[in-house]
């Protein structure tokens, strides 16, 4: 059932210096300008370039309004950039596709479908047989900890449960890249921690590429291989930090690990400095 990604673009890589893993997403000098009124323009993203390796967990961290969501929407193909280009496996991204699965902060579940109906939607659309889609979806629902809720409607679920359904719904159609926009931002601290652990477990099992937008420094360091720090007005990449911490990561071990603590403190300090240096917008 699972599609094996094609490697037909390997020759492109061979020209550039060898890398440990092949790039799956390339963001190439992407800028985004929004027209805010008849005369005014707003530069939301300025010349963003970023390469994401296959199987990497990459977080985008930055203040509110720095263009994190916009960048994610461009990779998703939901928004086309004003200039520059995003590519997946060497192909220009022009529209959404099942190779990139979004998980939105607003959940965006289909309210007229039950939990099971939501999760089955993608596989059915992809032509998976109903009995098979049903079995796979039930397994996914169990994996995200919602066994017993298959026939509930979204309005009957809490925020944390909806977020789990949204994750399961996207995982169900096996996207190669997960695009997650502050998926845990609206949740209470306890639920948030649990979902972070669950996401990490799922990810460490099948190693999908994840592009993960967040406000939270802890969350970014805990989950990621790489943290992309952005700054605001215009949205730019400030710094890209490799998080060199062992996996599988366990929360209780990591929180005591001085290396983890140093990453968190360093990143927070860098944001503080830019706040002081930055002129009011």
């Amino acid at each position, binding site marked *: 059932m699972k599609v094996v990604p094609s490697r037909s673009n390997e020759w492109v890589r061979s020209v550039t210096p060898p890398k440990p893993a092949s790039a799956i997403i390339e963001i190439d000098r992407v800028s985004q300008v929004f027209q805010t009124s008849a005369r005014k323009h707003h530069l939301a993203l300025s010349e963003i370039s970023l390469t994401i390796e296959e199987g990497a967990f990459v977080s985008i961290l930055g203040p509110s309004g720095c263009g994190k969501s916009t960048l994610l929407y461009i990779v998703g193909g939901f928004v086309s950039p004003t200039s520059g280009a995003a590519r997946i496996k060497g192909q220009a991204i022009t529209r959404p596709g099942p190779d990139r699965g979004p998980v939105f902060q607003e959940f965006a579940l289909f309210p*007229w479908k039950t939990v099971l109906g939501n999760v089955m939607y993608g596989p059915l*659309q992809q032509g998976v047989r109903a009995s098979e889609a049903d079995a796979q979806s039930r397994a996914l629902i169990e994996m995200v900890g919602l066994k017993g809720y298959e026939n509930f409607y979204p*309005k009957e679920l809490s925020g944390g449960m909806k977020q789990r359904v949204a994750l399961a719904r996207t995982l169900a159609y096996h996207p190669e890249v997960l695009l997650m926009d502050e998926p845990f931002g609206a949740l209470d601290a306890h639920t948030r921690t649990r979902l972070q652990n669950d996401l990490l477990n799922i990810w460490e099992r099948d190693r999908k590429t994840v592009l993960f937008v967040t406000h939270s420094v802890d969350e970014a360091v805990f989950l990621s291989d790489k943290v992309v720090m952005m700054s605001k007005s215009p949205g730019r990449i400030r710094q890209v930090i490799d998080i060199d911490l062992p996996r599988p990561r366990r929360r209780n071990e990591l929180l005591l690990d001085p290396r983890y603590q140093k990453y968190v403190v360093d990143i927070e300090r860098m944001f503080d400095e830019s706040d002081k240096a930055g002129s009011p917008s």
Partner: protein
Amino acid sequence: MMSPATLTRRIAPALACVGLLMVWQVASLALKNDSFPTAIEAIRAIPDILGDKESLINILASLRRMAIGFGVAVLFSIPLGLLMGRSRAVAAFFNPLLMIIYPVPKAALMPIIMLWLGVGDVTKTLVIFLGVSLPVIYHSFEGAKAVEEKMLWSGAAMGLSPLQRLVRIVLPAALPEILTGCRTGLVLALITMITSEMIARQSGAGNILFNALDMGQYDTVFAMIIIVGAMGICLDALFDQVRARLVRWSEPQFDMPLSFS
């Protein structure tokens, strides 16, 4: 065993009807006017109408026109409203047209339509169609406009084409709003049905009513008003049953309490 709240809710409509009839009875007795029969006189005239084959055929002919006018209007208006809600170009084209038609009483167009299409079924059905279309278009439009964009994006990521998104995401997501429009449309269908038969007298429930009025048979007039009213209540209740079943997923679960004291 029914809770007191459920019981009250169940019998409330019956209480309202009985109350109305009582007020009518008292008012009629007090006024002593020939053209205002008592409720009991009017109710007594109902079996005569419903027992008469000619009248029954008339009423059924009305209902048939209404069903066709309503059905065609819904089938036409929902797709149009949804398209308008999702495409600015389509909305920009149709909005001015609808704004022109909106304030015109549809029955006022009847004399003109009669000149073109005669006084038969086509004219009356067309007027019903016009009466029903606008609220259904309007509510479908508003419903489609309000569909959360991220929901459409999720569908696009799963590989749904634009048409599939319209049918399989916009339509169900806007359904509660669409059905609100259809409910208004149903009432308007009944109203335009009667007015069309008032203008083009030939057959129908409206014809019985206005003929009786001409001949001074006031108990028949009021009996017909009761019959038409009852038809309205029944259709509306039936429709609400269907609606509630279709959009159970969106209904609030609890009554809104007026106070928490």
